[in-house]
């Protein structure tokens, strides 16, 4: 049965091609840095208003030397991973429940549609009132952000599971649990992974905002505090670290997981691979 719905895994890109792509990406970054550095004397403003790449490198080294960046990075990642994990588990669990049970769908769908419209930014002040400044508020905001994309994509995956395969398992005497394990969940997996990737991106943005409002540590706080203390270069370090972190998470976790699920099932094609 699994052979009928399993496509051959995509071939890995040759190392030379990947290396060439990496070099081109690096060239783009270096070009931007060169233009930025060259523009500093032309702009002619103080480093508070317009820090140069050299200022940012000095600020980065200073933050590492003083132990600030490693702690902020660790705090942000712990919050992010906690929120992402809990939000994803809740999203998948309730997505499967709503997808399979009509009563649950009738009871919960309107509520979730209503809550979906209220962005996490609106919740954070209330969370601060209820839970105070700190980890709880940030993690709750992240759970909220991750939950809906995972929920709706899981729901879509569950509802579009091939009825033919469901009937086949049932006609062979399969239990509801076996239908879920052998058909529904594998069919929903591409949707779950898509939801996870979207939710992971949203959560990353949510993390910055939540840390600005409700934390005294973290990369979001660094971004905010840098401008407050007139250390704009630190703000830019925070922004660059956020960008690099996301690139690393996407490159080393989300993309490989997506490749191992979505493309394996033959449902999508990596547009970049075609480029």
């Amino acid at each position, binding site marked *: 049965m699994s052979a009928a719905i399993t496509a051959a*895994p995509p071939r890995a890109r040759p190392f030379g091609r990947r290396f060439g792509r990496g070099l081109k990406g690096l060239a783009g970054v270096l070009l931007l840095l060169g233009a930025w550095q060259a523009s500093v004397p032309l702009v002619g403003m103080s480093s508070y208003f317009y820090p140069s790449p050299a200022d940012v490198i000095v600020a980065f080294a200073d933050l590492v030397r003083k132990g*600030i960046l490693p702690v902020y990075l660790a705090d942000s990642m712990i919050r992010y991973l906690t929120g992402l994990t809990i939000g994803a588990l809740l999203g998948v669990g309730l997505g499967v429940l709503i997808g399979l049970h009509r009563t649950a769908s009738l009871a919960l769908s309107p509520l979730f549609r209503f809550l979906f419209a209220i962005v996490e930014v609106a919740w954070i002040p209330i969370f601060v009132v209820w839970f105070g400044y700190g980890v709880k508020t940030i993690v709750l905001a992240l759970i909220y952000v991750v939950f809906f994309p995972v929920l709706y994509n899981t729901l879509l995956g569950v509802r579009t599971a091939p009825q033919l395969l469901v009937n086949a398992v049932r006609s062979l005497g399969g239990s509801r649990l076996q239908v879920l394990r052998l058909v529904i969940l594998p069919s929903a997996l591409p949707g779950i992974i898509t939801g996870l990737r979207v939710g992971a991106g949203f959560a990353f943005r949510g993390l910055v905002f939540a840390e600005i409002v409700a934390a005294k540590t973290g990369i979001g706080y660094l971004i905010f505090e840098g401008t407050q203390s007139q250390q704009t270069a630190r703000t830019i370090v925070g922004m660059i670290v956020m960008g690099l972190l996301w690139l690393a998470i996407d490159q*080393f976790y989300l993309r*490989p*997981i997506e*490749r191992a699920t979505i493309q*394996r099932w033959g449902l999508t094609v990596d547009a970049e691979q075609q480029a």
Partner: protein
Amino acid sequence: MMLRQPAIATVCVIAAILAYWLSGVAAAGRKLAALEPLPPRASYAVTLAFPPEQFHQLRLQDKGRVVEVRERTVYIMDVSPSAAHDIAHEYWVDSVTPWAGR
């Protein structure tokens, strides 16, 4: 096979965290070697390699009662042995010396 990349990345991250932690433990041992055995509650002068920022003061405040900051040194009271080890574990702490307190 396809998930080799996340597995390698995870192992690298864990290895980096472990190396950081172990180097901190070794550094704490060196910094506190002359003070062992540590008393149940004590006061210390914690010297950094630079003037402490709010971040460092808050971190030290979690470990005891910060009573004074003078140039690169933070004076802290009511520090337990485990908190003293935590302080010495930080790589930005140059030295931890006994202080008579107030």
